[in-house]
C-alpha cells in the first residue's frame, strides 16, 4: 500500500489544544505523534513560596473540567505532609464532592465529546436534533452532577469550599435533601445511559494494556488506596516516584510518563474498572453485564460504557452518602504549619492524579510536583493510534482520520491539564 501521513492540526471535542500526526510506510506506522501545543503554564514553578492554604485554590486553575480532582490530590498531599487525616463525615463529604465531578465530567465527555463520533455527528447539538431524548437526559444528569459540586464546593467551576483538613463551611441539611431529590430524579436515566452506550457501533481494537489505578479494600476508589496494576504493581502512594518517571519529548508540551522498566501504562475508567469492578454495587454490575461489559474491557472505544457505568455508580454513591450523612462537629481538622513532605493521589475522571509537596516550617511550598492523568496516558494513546492505523488500513482517508481522532477522544484527554497535550496529520506521501 502507499505511504500515508494522517494529520489533524487542531483536535476538536477535547479539552485543550493538540493535534495528531501518523505516518505510514509500507503498511506499517513509521511515526506517530500526539502533538501538544497547549502553551505551558508553569504551575509547579510559581507554587514555590506560596502559603499551603493557597494550593487548593491555585491548582484548581490547572483544569476547569476537573478542578475538584486537583483540590482533592492537593489537599491529601498537604495533609500527608502535615500529618493529619480526614475521616468520618468530612471524608464522606469529599467523596460526595468527587461524585459530582465524575458525573459532570463523564457525562460531558460521554455525550457531548464522545457519543457524536459513534453516531456520525459533528457535535451534540446536531445529535440533539435527531435524538433529543438522549441529549436532554445527558443535560439533566450533568446538571445533577454540577449541583453536587455547587452545593458542597460553592460553585461548579473552581469550587471555593475545599481546604486542608476539610471544608470552610458544611453543607446545610436542606441543601443536601434537595440534592438527593435531584439525584433520585436521574437515577434511572443513568442506568439507561449505560445500556444505550452498549448499543453503539464499536470499532474493533483489543489491546493488552498495563492498567494502573488506585485500589481500596472496601470501596470503588476516589481519594485513597494503593496504586496497583494488572501486572503485579502494588505500592503505597508515597512510592509513586520510585516506580514512575516523566520524560520530555520534543513534540509535546506535556511530559510523558512511563513505568520504570515497564513502558507505557493506562490510567482512567478502563483501568479503574478492571482493577476494582468487584467493588461496584450489584445494580451497577448488573447494568454492566446487560450492556455487554465483562470484568475486563480492552477495547478503548468501549470506555464510553465504563464512563456511563461510573456515572451510574457516582449517582448511587452520592445518594448513599447523603442518606447516611451526619454532620461533624467542625468543618475541618486543624493543622498548624510544620515542615514536611507529602504525597497525594486521587482518581480524577481521567485517571490517577499525583501531587507531591515539600513545605517548610512556615507552611510555604518549597517544591511541587504534579502528574496529571493525560500525561500518563500520552504514550498509550500514541500506541493505540499505531495499532489502530495498522489494523484499519482498509478505511478511506476521511474515515481513518475521523477514527484516529476518535481513538484519541477515547481517553477524554485533558490537554489543559497535561501541559504542564494533541495533533492528526494525514498527508499523501
Amino acid at each position, binding site marked *: 500500500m502507499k505511504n500515508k501521513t494522517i494529520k489533524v492540526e487542531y483536535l476538536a471535542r477535547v479539552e485543550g489544544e493538540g493535534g495528531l500526526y501518523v505516518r505510514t510506510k509500507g503498511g506499517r506506522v513509521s511515526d506517530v505523534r500526539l502533538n501538544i501545543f497547549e502553551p505551558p503554564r508553569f504551575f509547579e514553578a510559581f507554587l514555590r513560596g506560596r502559603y499551603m492554604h493557597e494550593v487548593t485554590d491555585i491548582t484548581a486553575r490547572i*483544569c*476547569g473540567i476537573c478542578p475538584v480532582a486537583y483540590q482533592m490530590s492537593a489537599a491529601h498531599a498537604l495533609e500527608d505532609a502535615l500529618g493529619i487525616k480526614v475521616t468520618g463525615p468530612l471524608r464522606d463529604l469529599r467523596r460526595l464532592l468527587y461524585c459530582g465531578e465524575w458525573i459532570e465530567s463523564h457525562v460531558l465527555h460521554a455525550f457531548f465529546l464522545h457519543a457524536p463520533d459513534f453516531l456520525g455527528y*459533528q457535535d451534540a*447539538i446536531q445529535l440533539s436534533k435527531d435524538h433529543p431524548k438522549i441529549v436532554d437526559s445527558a*443535560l439533566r444528569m450533568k446538571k445533577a452532577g454540577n449541583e453536587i459540586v455547587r452545593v458542597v464546593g460553592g460553585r461548579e467551576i473552581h469550587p471555593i469550599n475545599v481546604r486542608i483538613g476539610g471544608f470552610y*463551611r458544611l453543607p446545610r441539611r436542606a441543601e443536601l435533601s434537595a440534592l438527593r431529590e435531584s439525584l433520585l430524579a436521574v437515577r434511572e436515566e443513568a442506568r439507561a445511559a449505560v445500556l444505550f452506550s452498549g448499543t453503539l457501533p464499536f470499532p474493533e481494537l483489543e489491546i493488552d494494556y498495563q492498567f494502573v489505578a488506585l485500589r481500596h479494600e472496601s470501596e470503588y476508589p476516589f481519594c485513597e488506596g494503593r496504586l496497583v496494576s494488572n501486572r503485579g504493581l502494588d505500592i503505597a502512594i508515597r512510592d509513586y516516584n520510585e516506580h514512575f518517571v516523566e520524560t520530555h519529548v520534543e513534540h509535546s508540551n506535556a511530559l510523558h510518563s512511563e513505568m520504570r522498566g515497564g513502558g507505557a501504562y493506562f490510567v482512567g475508567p478502563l483501568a479503574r474498572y478492571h482493577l476494582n469492578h468487584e467493588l461496584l454495587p450489584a445494580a451497577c454490575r448488573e447494568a454492566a453485564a446487560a450492556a455487554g461489559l465483562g470484568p475486563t474491557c480492552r477495547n478503548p472505544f468501549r470506555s464510553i460504557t465504563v464512563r456511563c457505568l461510573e456515572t451510574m455508580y457516582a449517582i448511587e454513591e452520592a445518594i448513599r452518602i447523603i442518606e447516611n450523612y451526619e454532620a461533624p462537629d467542625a468543618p475541618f481538622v486543624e493543622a498548624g504549619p510544620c515542615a514536611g513532605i507529602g504525597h497525594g493521589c486521587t482518581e480524577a475522571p481521567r485517571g490517577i492524579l499525583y501531587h507531591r509537596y515539600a513545605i517548610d516550617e512556615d507552611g510555604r511550598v518549597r517544591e511541587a510536583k504534579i502528574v496529571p492523568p493525560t500525561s500518563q496516558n500520552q504514550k498509550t494513546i500514541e500506541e493505540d493510534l499505531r495499532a489502530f492505523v495498522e489494523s484499519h488500513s482498509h478505511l478511506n482517508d476521511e474515515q481513518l482520520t475521523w477514527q484516529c481522532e476518535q481513538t484519541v477522544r477515547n481517553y477524554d484527554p485533558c490537554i489543559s491539564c497535561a501541559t504542564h497535550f494533541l495533533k492528526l496529520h494525514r498527508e499523501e506521501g
Partner: protein
Amino acid sequence: MSKIRKPKLAVWKFASCDGCQLSLLDCEDELLTVAGILDIANFAEATRAVLKGPYDLSLVEGSITTPHDAERIHQIRRMSKHLVAIGACANAGGIQALRNFRDVNDFINIVYASPEYISTLAKSTPISDHVHVDFELRGCPIDKKQLLEVVQAYLQGRKPRTPAHSVCVECKLRGTVCVMVAKGMPCLGPVTYAGCGGLCPSYHRGCFGCFGPKETVNTASLAGWFASHGVKRIDRVDAFRGFSAWSDAFRKESEAQERDEGADHA
C-alpha cells in the same frame, strides 16, 4: 423559502484552564436554546464542524503566552465583528502571569527537563494588550449568567450589563456578616468586582479576588488594614498576586507591598 442568517458565534482558546468556555456548556437549561438562535461556528471543545468567518461574536478565553498565539489573536480580531475577552486569563494574564514577576527561564528549568523544546514568551499578557477588545467579562471562572447576558446583549445590539460595584455590596445584599469586621479576616472584597454573588464570605472565608480589581480602588488602604491586622508582608504581596496579578491595580499594589520592607513587624 427565505431563511434569515443566524449570527455566528466563535469560541477561541489561548493559555487557560478551559473553565470559562466550559461555562457555556454548563448552561444545561439554556444551551440548546442558544444553539437554536446562534450558529456555533467555531468552538473546538464542542464541535468538529467549523464554519468560515467572519464571526459576529467571538468569545476569547486565555492569555497570550507564545509567539504563535500573539499572531493568532490578530487573525481572530480581523475575523470578528465583536470580540469579548472572557475570564481572568484573557483580561489580566491569569495565574500564569505570575511568571511576569520572575525570569521565565528559571520557570522552564523547574518544570521541563529539555528547556530547548519549549517556546514561550517572557510574559503572560491579556488580550487587550494585543488587539482591541469590545468587552471584558470578568471572573475566574466567569459567571454563566453573566455570559448569557453578554451573548444576549450582542444579539440585541446593546452593551452588556454587568455590575460595576464591589463584592462588599453583594455581601450586604446577601446578608452576609462582614468577615473583616466580625472576624478580622483579610478579604479582597472591597477592591474586587462583584459577579460571584459574594461567595467566599458566605463560606466563612475572605474573598481572594476571582473577578479582578474594580475601577477606582484604594488597594493601598486595604493593604494598610491587612498590615494593621497582622498580615505579614509576604502574604500581603501574595494576596494581590492571584488570578489577576498582572492587572494594573493589583500589580502596582503587590509591588508596593514588596518594596515596603520596613513596615513588616510580624
